[in-house]
């Protein structure tokens, strides 16, 4: 196998610039005449805006302009939209109160945007921002989703702070199955609020060009076309063809850089008002306050089963926190990316989910790595574990007994999805072998000798990714199509430029996509350049989220390559004086079948651009564009097993071993895929052990507002991971690929909590399982012994 084709762990093209400090991130860019924006943010969780006095700030040294919500309102600026309409139980659309880039009349969370100060230097803008005097009319606030419906109302048009009350599945059938069950495992749990924390803070530069009446926006975006669409069509009412969005190197996203935020909106709008570029870069404190957060569910779950442990029904009731306003895709996360995954890997015949989405005085909540699927997986794999303990069954065998068998695919779940393919038992068997499950009891005994508690935890996850078939998501309320685009352009001298609508912010697309094109077209890897992130050069594209880049974006590239080959055959047939039907293409050469007569693809490309002797009716050039709309989601699945050792005296938990066996379909670059798994697991372990976005329930202040307070996973919190793979090929995309970006973050949390509760002999512990919680549980277990 060449070391640059499909299946090779090719070293990354992008690394040279990143390793030498030559990456170009948004904050590295500066524009001539640039000014600096600093936002004045609400210190209160809920308050009326009685008066915003900007006069002192306006006269401060270096200040160019100060704008408030009133200025934007007077200019006709609209609301940041929510792009997915969820229809509630009664058939009504969700409540979508306005979300203005700069607040009007009222602020609804700590960090909400009150005004922007624009100055010649960043320091001057910072100094002047402190001179903006805001007269707040403080009101009672609520940050807790469980209390939201009885809390002070945030929005006039959302009574009881209810965004929607939604359901999926056959509630009657579920209740009946539960009433007849041999046993029902029940659990109340919280899925803790997370703050995404890409290490590159968000940043934006808005630049208006008076000569062409056009804008250029530099932004830390995962999806530059989507940002352009939202700003133009919904918020600023700009002509799309006069706006160019450039998302250069972006330092991680994990969902938080999907959305159109207030800051880039204001920078863009203000750049025309002052006719100068306006730059803003988040301080980390602002990232904590105003990036979209993730998760934040409160759930009750019941799993019914017969006497043999066969699952007969699942019932889920969730309250999901939307935050103070709806972020762009907030509504679909706890519905269509959550409840639809509640079958997991199991053949549970009936499932019902009810989700109440509520407004609270907190930062907006939207997709964060996994988005809905980690929440579904956590509750399911937790309640399955509880069931195994209550039924006194081996947790691995209980799962095996309920797996959808390999011959049942395609499999229609009772919650609206059709899984195309999978082999869950194969992953379980491999994982059990890798972790040496049969000798776990010996390891546990050995730990006990040292005074330590050892536990093992399973997580058999599935996710729906490769988002998404446009017609399906359209029928479910999405306001966009979720196809992807690609343009494969041969240059006259034989190199290839590939323009993709996918956006790389750590995923290594410049490498993986080049491997795909190299293998398909037989062009040297070094001669292929992947271009992304600039609406001025790529075809309209939908960007990167939901583990979609290879399954959807890669499939578009494959389709464009196929078009190149089809056209190349016509040109080659003319050059070789043969019939098109006799031309075969293999390893970069067009050949007359059964002969040694051939032309390389580079020769064909040259002929296409220098068409002196050329087939009639064929256009010059070798430059093809394709759009790919997937027929279904892809369904990566796998089994993760975590083994922990707990010191009951300190509550310290060590992850003693971690095994991940995932089925991602065909893998293009195993090195990159394994890296994605590692990173996903780390974020999942972070959620399980360390991370928690906490607001003070009285004041509504964000308590975990810095790296001093919000516990990010550090190198010494994590082990090395053992990663294995199984492979069933996706049946409906041309590459047979699934998606790997979110798997670790989805799989990891229940594996950790199942292991910890196993070690401690308790049924449940809410995340994050801090040392304090673990120590307290360990002490409680000890007390009866102490009394003896």
């Amino acid at each position, binding site marked *: 196998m060449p070391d640059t084709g499909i299946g090779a762990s090719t070293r990354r093209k992008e690394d040279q610039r990143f390793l030498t400090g030559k990456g170009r991130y948004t904050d590295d860019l500066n524009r001539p005449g640039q000014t600096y924006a600093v936002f004045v943010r609400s210190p209160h969780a809920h308050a009326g805006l009685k008066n915003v006095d900007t006069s002192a700030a306006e006269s401060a040294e270096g200040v160019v302009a100060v704008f408030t919500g009133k200025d934007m309102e007077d200019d006709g600026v609209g609301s940041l939209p929510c792009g997915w309409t969820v229809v509630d139980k009664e058939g009504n659309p969700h409540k979508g109160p306005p979300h203005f880039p700069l607040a009007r009349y009222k602020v609804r969370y700590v960090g909400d945007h009150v005004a922007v100060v624009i100055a010649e230097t960043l320091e001057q803008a910072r100094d002047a921002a402190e001179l903006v005097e805001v007269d707040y009319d403080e009101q009672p606030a609520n940050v807790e989703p469980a209390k939201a419906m009885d809390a002070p109302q945030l929005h006039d048009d959302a009574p009881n702070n209810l965004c929607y009350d939604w359901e999926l599945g056959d509630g009657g059938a579920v209740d009946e199955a539960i009433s007849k069950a041999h046993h029902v495992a029940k659990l109340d749990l919280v899925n803790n609020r997370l703050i995404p924390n890409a290490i590159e803070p968000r940043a934006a530069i808005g630049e208006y060009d008076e000569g062409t009446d056009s804008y250029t926006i530099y932004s830390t975006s995962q999806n530059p076309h989507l940002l352009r669409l939202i700003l133009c069509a919904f918020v600023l009412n700009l002509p799309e063809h006069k706006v160019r969005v450039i998302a250069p190197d972006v330092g991680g996203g994990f969902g938080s850089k999907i959305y159109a935020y207030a800051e880039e909106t204001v920078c863009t709008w203000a750049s025309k008002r002052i006719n100068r570029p306006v730059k803003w870069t988040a301080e980390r404190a602002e990232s904590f306050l105003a990036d979209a957060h993730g998760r934040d569910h409160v759930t009750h779950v019941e799993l019914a089963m017969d006497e043999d442990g066969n699952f007969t029904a699942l019932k889920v009731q969730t309250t999901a926190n939307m935050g103070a306003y709806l972020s762009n895709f907030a509504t679909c996360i706890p519905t269509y990316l959550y409840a639809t995954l509640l079958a997991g890997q199991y053949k549970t015949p009936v499932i019902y989910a009810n989700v109440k989405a509520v407004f609270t005085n907190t930062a907006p909540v939207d997709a964060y790595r996994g988005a809905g699927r980690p929440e579904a997986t956590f509750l399911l794999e937790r309640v399955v574990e509880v069931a195994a303990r209550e039924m006194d069954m081996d947790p691995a065998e209980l799962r095996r007994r309920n797996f959808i068998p390999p011959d049942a695919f395609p499999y229609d779940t009772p919650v609206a999805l059709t899984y195309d393919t999978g082999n869950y038992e194969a992953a379980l068997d491999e994982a059990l072998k890798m972790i040496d499950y049969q000798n776990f009891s010996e390891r546990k005994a050995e730990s006990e000798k040292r005074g330590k508690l050892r536990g093992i935890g399973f997580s058999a996850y599935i996710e729906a990714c490769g988002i998404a078939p446009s017609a399906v998501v359209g029928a479910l309320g999405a306001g966009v199509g979720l196809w992807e685009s690609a343009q494969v352009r041969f240059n006259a001298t034989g190199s290839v430029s590939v323009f993709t609508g996918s956006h790389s912010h*750590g995923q290594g697309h410049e490498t993986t996509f080049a491997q795909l094109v190299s293998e398909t077209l037989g062009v040297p890897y070094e001669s292929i350049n992947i271009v992304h992130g600039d609406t001025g050069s790529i075809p309209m594209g939908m960007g990167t989220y939901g583990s979609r880049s290879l399954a959807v974006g890669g499939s578009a590239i494959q389709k464009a390559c196929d078009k190149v080959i089809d056209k190349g055959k016509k040109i080659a047939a003319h050059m070789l004086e043969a019939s098109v039907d006799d031309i075969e293409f293999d390893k970069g050469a067009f050949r007359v079948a059964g002969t040694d007569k051939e032309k390389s693809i580079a020769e064909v490309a040259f002929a296409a651009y220098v068409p002196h002797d050329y087939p009639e009716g064929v256009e010059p050039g070798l430059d093809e564009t394709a759009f790919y709309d997937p027929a279904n989601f892809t369904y990566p699945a796998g089994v993760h097993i975590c083994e922990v050792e707990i010191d009951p005296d300190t509550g310290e938990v060590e992850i003693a071993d971690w095994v991940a066996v995932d089925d991602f379909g065909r893998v293009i670059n195993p090195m990159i895929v394994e890296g994605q798994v590692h990173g996903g697991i780390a974020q999942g372990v972070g959620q399980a052990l360390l991370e928690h976005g906490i607001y003070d329930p009285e004041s509504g202040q964000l308590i975990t507002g810095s790296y001093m307070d919000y516990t990010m996973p550090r190198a010494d919190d994590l082990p090395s991971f053992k990663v294995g793979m199984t492979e069933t090929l996706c049946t409906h995309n041309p590459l047979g690929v699934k998606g790997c970006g979110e798997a670790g973050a989805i799989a990891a949390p229940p594996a950790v909590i199942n292991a910890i509760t196993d070690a401690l002999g308790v049924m449940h512990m809410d995340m994050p399982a801090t040392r304090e919680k673990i120590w307290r549980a360990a002490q409680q277990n000890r007390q009866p012994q102490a009394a003896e």
Partner: protein
Amino acid sequence: MPTVSMTVNGKQVSGEVEGRTLLSDFLRENLNLTGTHIGCDTSQCGACVVHVNGDSIKSCTLLALQAEGAEVLTIEGLANGTNLHPMQQAFKEHHGLQCGFCTPGMVMSAIDLLKHNPDPSEDEIRDWLQGNMCRCTGYHNIVKAIQAAAQDMRS
């Protein structure tokens, strides 16, 4: 505004700064050495680690004026032309980076680790890296890269 002078990547440089200007800002804004990244405002993330007089330091913890006369090495000064430093090479070989944002600080910090401890254990590497956050890699391949670089640099 006062003027500060120092040697950065072997070149004598000077510039006007405010008293409150941090070394990280001086490198980025005055010298356009944007490989030194800023990921937080509490000196936690480590994306801005450079070497000052041979020791790794978070450049956001130092005022530019405090570096008067110092020898500063940033990520841009590490490679010899297109030849990567063994640590850079090991990060590439072992996929020790994804988005690349924490990478300059990681690499600069790891080089200093090997100066103190040429043959660190996995635990010692993880302990040293507490001051450098990565959100992408789960640290797995960073640890591998540093182990490989250590072996390479010893031989």
